[in-house]
């Protein structure tokens, strides 16, 4: 088991001792006995999530752009220094291996974050290009998310945070500590990710929490994060999809086009791994499409009423395959779902047959009560479910 560089602080704060493991790193599920307060901090004030365990690779060298363009689906040559891209990467069959965030640190220097560790694969695919790949997962990373995250950071730094655009990054000092700040996150809200050398992790944490007292800052764990990322319509590996390299059966694999992230697949750029298969898939038509579902609460309430129960809502996000039907025929599955406290809606991410994916289509989702299979009505909607303008807007001048 490995410990984040922020562990001296997170271990003191994780009151219910509720931890899980992420790549064998210790990760707090929640810091308070109830994660709903943490969720509301993300949507009303601000919160900090220790995302240090996320695998990180420093990719640099004269051929870094050519190399990355060969392996990821995004067009890296069009990524400016200081810009950040969401991208996927596939196997030769065009099946997704993982998704992640690519940061252009310099002309020949990038950082890639991933869901699973991929050092072997990144190295195996250098194809004699002049590029160096280093695992820099030890770097400390904090996600500071929420409507007041910018106000908080501005009290610690002279950097021009008001003009830092969504999916861009800068080098800065926070309370005198050198960091990189990227306007990125996994919550769909205004937010930043802060990258720091491990030996300065604790002083950075302390500075942020001291300043945070004025902004109702709380640490948040995985439970609150899951609710927020589903509202934001963001996919999770091992929940909404599986890595094609880590499953055995073909049905467990999916393509980025099926997952609704085709916008991050630049089909017309030069060769990349999986390009040919993805083009063929597009020509042939998709087998699945990924959409949002809004569960009809009146219908769900009626299902619970059959059991003499009041409506039950999932305050914790669930991540499992749940059948979705139309006219009694299964047409796909929901893969993640949660009650959305800000939207007052029960929402789910689902992968359905394409003829059922236009917004407004009525479908049924399975609900299990007392081991009895029931169905509730749901409506197909576009994702993201929650997309406030502050996520991308610039600060006050």
């Amino acid at each position, binding site marked *: 088991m490995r410990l984040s560089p922020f562990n001296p602080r997170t271990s003191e704060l994780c009151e219910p001792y509720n931890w899980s493991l992420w790549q064998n790193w210790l990760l707090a599920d929640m810091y308070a006995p*109830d994660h709903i307060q943490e969720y509301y901090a993300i949507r009303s004030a601000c919160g900090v999530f220790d995302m240090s365990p996320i695998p990180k690779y420093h990719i640099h060298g004269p051929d870094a752009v050519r190399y990355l363009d060969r392996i990821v689906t995004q067009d890296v040559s069009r990524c400016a220094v200081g810009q950040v891209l969401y991208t996927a990467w596939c196997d030769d069959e065009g099946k997704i291996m993982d998704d992640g965030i690519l940061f252009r640190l310099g002309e020949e220097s990038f950082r890639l974050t991933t869901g699973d560790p991929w050092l072997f694969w990144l190295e195996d695919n250098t194809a004699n290009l002049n590029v160096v790949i280093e695992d820099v997962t030890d770097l400390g990373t904090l996600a500071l998310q929420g409507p007041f995250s910018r106000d908080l950071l501005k009290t610690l730094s002279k950097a021009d945070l008001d003009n830092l655009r969504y999916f861009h990054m800068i080098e800065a000092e926070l309370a005198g500590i050198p960091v990189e700040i990227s306007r990125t996150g996994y919550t769909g809200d205004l937010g930043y990710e802060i990258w720091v050398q491990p030996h300065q992790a604790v002083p950075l944490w302390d500075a942020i929490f001291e300043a945070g007292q004025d902004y109702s800052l709380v640490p948040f764990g995985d439970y609150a994060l899951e609710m927020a990322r589903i509202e934001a319509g963001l996919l999770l590996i091992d929940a909404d999809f599986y890595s094609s390299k880590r499953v055995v059966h073909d049905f467990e694999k999916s393509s980025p086009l099926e997952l609704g992230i085709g916008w991050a697949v630049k089909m017309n750029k030069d060769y990349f791994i999986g390009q040919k298969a993805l083009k063929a898939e597009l020509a042939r038509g998709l087998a699945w499409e990924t959409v949002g579902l809004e569960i009809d609460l009146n219908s769900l309430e009626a299902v619970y009423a059959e059991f003499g129960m009041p409506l*039950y809502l999932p305050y914790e996000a669930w991540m499992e395959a749940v059948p979705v039907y139309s006219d009694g025929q299964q047409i796909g599955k929901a893969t993640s779902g949660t009650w959305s406290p800000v939207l*007052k809606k029960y929402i789910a991410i689902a992968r359905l047959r394409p003829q059922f994916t236009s917004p407004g289509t009525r479908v049924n989702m399975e609900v299990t009560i007392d081991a009895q299979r029931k169905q509730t009505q749901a409506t197909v909607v576009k994702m993201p479910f929650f997309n406030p303008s502050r996520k991308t807007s610039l600060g006050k001048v």
Partner: protein
Amino acid sequence: MNAKNKKYDAIVIGGGHNGLTAAAYLAKAGKQVLVLERRHLLGGAAVTEELYPGFKYTVYSYVVSLLPPQIIRELELPKHGLHIMPLEGSFTPMEDGNYFANYPDEDDTLDEVRRHSRRDAAIYPVFSNMMYDLAQAVKPILSMVPPDPANPGLSGLKTLSAFGSHFKSLGKEKFYWLTKVMTMSAYDFLSEWFETDVLIATIAQVGIIGTFLGPKSPGTAYVLLHYYLGELDGATSSWGIQKGGTGGVSEAIASAARSYGAEIRCNAPVEQVIVKNGQAVGVVLENGDEIYAKTIISGCDPKVTFRKFVEEKDLPSDLVEAIDNFKFRGSSGKVNLALDALPDFPAMQDKALIRAMQEICPSVDYLEKAYDDAKYGSFSKRPLLGCVIPSAVDPTMAPPGKHVMSIFVQYASYDMPAHGNRDQQRDAFGKAVIDTLEEFSPNIRDLILHKQVITPWDIEKVVGITEGNISHGELMIDQLFFMRPAPGYSKYRTPIRNYYQCGSGTHPGGGIMGTPGRLAAAEILKDGN
């Protein structure tokens, strides 16, 4: 067309949250609706005002819990800005330095009860289940028009018979408990379960909110249940605060109403309802303007609805008598504070409880003594205080690092001025609040940047609610269901044709709930208006 001459389907008098709710539902049904609000801002008693620069006060109200999910869903309120954040339970400091806390996590609460009494900890989950069941049993009544058993009519008979089987399905034991909760005092009811005084006090204080009764007065157990019906996303009896103050709830409902086409006018006080041949046809504003509509709906309290807007000659004498006897008796006030920093409660071990409701009700006797003062026309020397610090979870309420504290205070007798002039009484009342709070939070006085003190007569004068009762009349068993506001006049209609009522003085009563407005709109539409 000149707005003055425009003909509306419906005019709603009063832009409080119930008036706005009724307007939203009527507009959604395609009606041309005009809302007339006396003040410069919407919300009635659910308003937010920045009375000290940078600090927002939820002036007259404080927490939200009773707003039902149907209204949130049907009016799509989150889209219009509804954003309710749950409070982190409650915290009751005791006079000996000990405390009692109620946490969002049930096991934490049980640990806390166990710290005071192992016996009470063992029975607490049984009590919680029973209250939950009773709340579920009563809940359907709250979302329907109450049938009058004396004059049920055909649909009323059906409803009554449905009730019959509904209550039968509760089983004997729960039915007896339901009878007890309808008739007993909060203290007697709770004492059958618990031995821990501070636990009883913390639960019982909910039973006296908005009433002119003490925890040992019969009828308060029902009020307790009334508030148990509150929920946040299905979590019963949990309390929340609206982002930006409770005015945000009113604004969200108003925004929904406007999105359906309702017209809302502020600074438009209504003087009178125009009645011709026993039928309401319009209103006269204080400035003399006359506006006509097919239907007139009053969101004001029963006294204003029946004794101000219309003439006695247009009403039957039994209604006049019932309204004159209707008990308002405003018993609560508010103190709003702008604070330089978070206050310190020495008894607070878990600092997260600063985001909970801080209840100053250290014992049952404390509450009953507070009532003793009020019985004889004074304010409580040591009142019940329900404090929330919205800025601890919502940084939009105050500048960075600064805070607002919203303090619900009971008892403040409406009759207080009998003992001196109002300004002096208000100052003395405000002083009693701060003196009391200081006993439990010694640094509070030093932190105060600005203070607003509100008495029942301030609520009456500014908001317009008779005797300043936050529920538009006490929530007592003789003023509820088919008796609210008067026997025979409980179905949102009035003896004057096309004149309706939709305020908290109608079923099911007070709190930021919206149900009276929703039910009234449904009845109006049912009448073909």
